[in-house]
């Protein structure tokens, strides 16, 4: 245990000043005395909420957050739709955490490449993996790699300025776009494809994406799901935004709602309200005013149910997609557990743009870290990584890639609680000092890696906001890592 020693340091025979302590043979100043040091990998909501809870729970804990990109905030910056700025308010909370004297941000550090998990485990008392889900589930059908076919993850990354997606240059010169999947990400993509650009030009959507959307020929977006209306993964807020989207009209099919009315009464409230709104959109005859609005609309959106992709159809020289072949399904069972069963029928839909929005997927970071490749998560119990003392996980890496900020918040607080419990019980031995960022910084320097600090990020932040002001946008994002680093180091 750590004890204040007023006499002599055993190895050097040097009298210590009051306020200096020793832990074993290491002399530490009173500030860093055996202070538990935690490393968090990933600076999205999971990373920041985990840090927030740790700092609050223990006055002595120091938290270092490592992030691969020069900029923090993960999906809050790169995932949340540009026309949902209020959701990004959470950045203010994260900024306060980052500015806490016991929290440090190290951007531009690729964990797994610039520094290993093992090295982090040696330097810190606890390591929390919160690096989310950067991969996507593949459809696994022929034609998936044709031009004109994109994952929603990449499409969203493109319009949100994720550096690795800036070369996507999706071709929007077609009338119909098909989106596979009916979750909130699918609806975000639909909305960005169809929203009047007058609205988009006041958001933080990237300039290249805005220009592409201004030129876009897309007029019809089909949002396709394997199962029925009562299995959609989206939530009512996003569906309502589609219904209210200016200059668009819905094209829902009444037949899809046969038998749904009877099932309503047994549904839990969120599912019930959403299903009612979908039914209303499909079945109710709109008011005169609404009919007029719809007749003037230049763009159409629709949900199509009970359809699974079989093959993506190509043009004669096999260079790009011209459509998709869908299997027609029927439902077996009901509710969340209902299964889609092929009927044998198929249906071809013409489209020039196909976006697959069937789920993000976490990737393994390091062979030393257990990984469940079936569920694509790090196997854990309440955030404690299986078979690995001192290693934890939070966010989507822990539970899978679903959930909103509130879900991730609870999830991360939960992991932080496990870390604190383990420190208090001695499972994580905090009596022995660990060097933390001191040793990692040394390693990074040897390897020519220069981390970006939080104040460096704030220079990028300021520049983006002042660039945005010129065009009436909240910010104009920098789009390459090189530019970000250049600005960070000015």
């Amino acid at each position, binding site marked *: 245990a750590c004890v204040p020693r007023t006499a002599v340091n055993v190895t050097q025979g040097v009298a210590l000043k009051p306020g200096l302590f020793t832990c074993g043979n290491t002399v530490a100043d009173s500030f860093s005395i055996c202070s538990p040091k935690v490393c968090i990998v990933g600076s999205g909501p999971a990373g920041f909420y985990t840090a927030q809870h740790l700092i609050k729970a223990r006055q002595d804990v120091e938290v270092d957050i490592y992030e691969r990109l020069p900029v923090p905030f993960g999906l809050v910056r790169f995932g949340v739709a540009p026309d949902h700025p209020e959701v990004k308010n959470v950045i203010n909370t994260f900024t306060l955490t980052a500015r806490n004297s016991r929290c440090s941000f190290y951007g531009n550090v690729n964990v797994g490449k610039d520094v290993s998990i093992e090295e982090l485990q040696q330097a810190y008392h606890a390591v929390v993996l919160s690096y989310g889900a950067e991969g996507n589930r593949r459809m696994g059908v022929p034609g998936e790699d044709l031009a004109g076919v994109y994952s929603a993850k990449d499409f969203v990354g493109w319009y949100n300025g994720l550096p690795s997606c800036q070369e996507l240059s999706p071709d929007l010169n077609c009338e119909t776009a098909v989106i596979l999947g009916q979750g909130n990400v699918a609806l975000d993509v639909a909305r960005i494809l169809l929203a009047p650009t007058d609205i988009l030009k006041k958001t933080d959507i990237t300039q290249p994406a805005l220009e592409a959307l201004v030129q876009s020929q897309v007029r019809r977006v089909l949002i396709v799901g394997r199962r029925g209306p009562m299995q959609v993964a989206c939530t009512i807020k996003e569906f309502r935004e589609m219904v209210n989207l200016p200059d668009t009209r819905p094209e829902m099919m009444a037949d899809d709602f046969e038998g749904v009315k009877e099932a309503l009464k047994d549904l839990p409230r969120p599912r019930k309200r959403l299903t009612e709104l979908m039914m209303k959109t499909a079945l109710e005859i709109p008011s005169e005013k609404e009919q007029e609005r719809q007749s003037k609309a230049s763009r159409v959106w629709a949900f199509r149910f009970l359809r699974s992709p079989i093959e993506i159809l190509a043009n004669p020289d096999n260079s790009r997609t011209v459509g998709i072949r869908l299997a027609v399904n029927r439902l077996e069972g009901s509710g969340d557990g209902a299964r889609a069963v092929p009927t044998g029928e198929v249906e071809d839909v013409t489209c020039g743009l196909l976006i697959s929005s069937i789920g993000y997927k976490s990737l393994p970071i390091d062979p030393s870290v257990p990984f469940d490749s079936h569920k694509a998560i790090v196997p854990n119990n309440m955030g404690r990584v299986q078979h690995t003392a001192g290693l934890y996980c939070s966010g989507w890496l822990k539970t899978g890639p679903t959930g*909103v900020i509130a879900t991730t918040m609870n999830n991360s607080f939960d992991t932080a609680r496990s870390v604190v419990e383990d420190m208090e019980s001695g499972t994580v031995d905090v009596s022995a000092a660990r060097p933390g960022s001191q040793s990692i910084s040394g390693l990074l320097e040897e390897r020519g890696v220069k981390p970006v600090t939080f104040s460096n990020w704030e220079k990028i932040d300021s520049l983006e906001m002042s660039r945005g002001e010129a065009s009436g946008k909240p910010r104009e994002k920098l789009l390459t890592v090189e530019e970000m680093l250049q600005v960070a180091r000015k």
Partner: protein
Amino acid sequence: MAASAAVRSSMGLTFRLSRVMPDCNTCPLNRLKSCVSGAANVQRRGSFDSFRTINRNLQTSKGLYHSEEGSSNAEDPEDVVNVVYIDRSGKRIPVKAKVGDNVLYLAHKHGIDLEGACEASLACSTCQVYVSADHFDKLPEPEEREDDMLDMAPMLQENSRLGCQITLTRDLDGIELTLPKVTRNFYVDGHVPKPH
């Protein structure tokens, strides 16, 4: 604006508040980070105003009530609303509030860990509270947007409301607001483990 700037400079506040403030996360002033204007407005006004927003949070102390948080500092008994927060560990925290106080900001002022990720803009559900049965019906009906966000809240109950949408009135005197307990164990396949 000029007056508040004078207050700020008299308090010696600087941009690098982590150097100036002792331990921000336990200080009740820090909990007043929830700015009504929100990041959207901050971003529109530009970088300089992000300073102003942070400093504005710090200057809001008991003696300087923001209009959204409570109209009067006077100890007027007519104005008092007794509130009890029940935190996630079950601890009861009685609070003497005022008519017009907002439940989310009130919680922050008293160091109660009710998160407000979207800063009261009906874009998240992190400020969900369970309202005592006696008072639930006295609240005005939620607007559609609040109901939509509640639908996304984990552990939604019949008596759930978003704290940022509750403004205290005299007839809410005695109201008890329970913060949802965070369930341990989350599973991808939705399996809920038996409690132990």
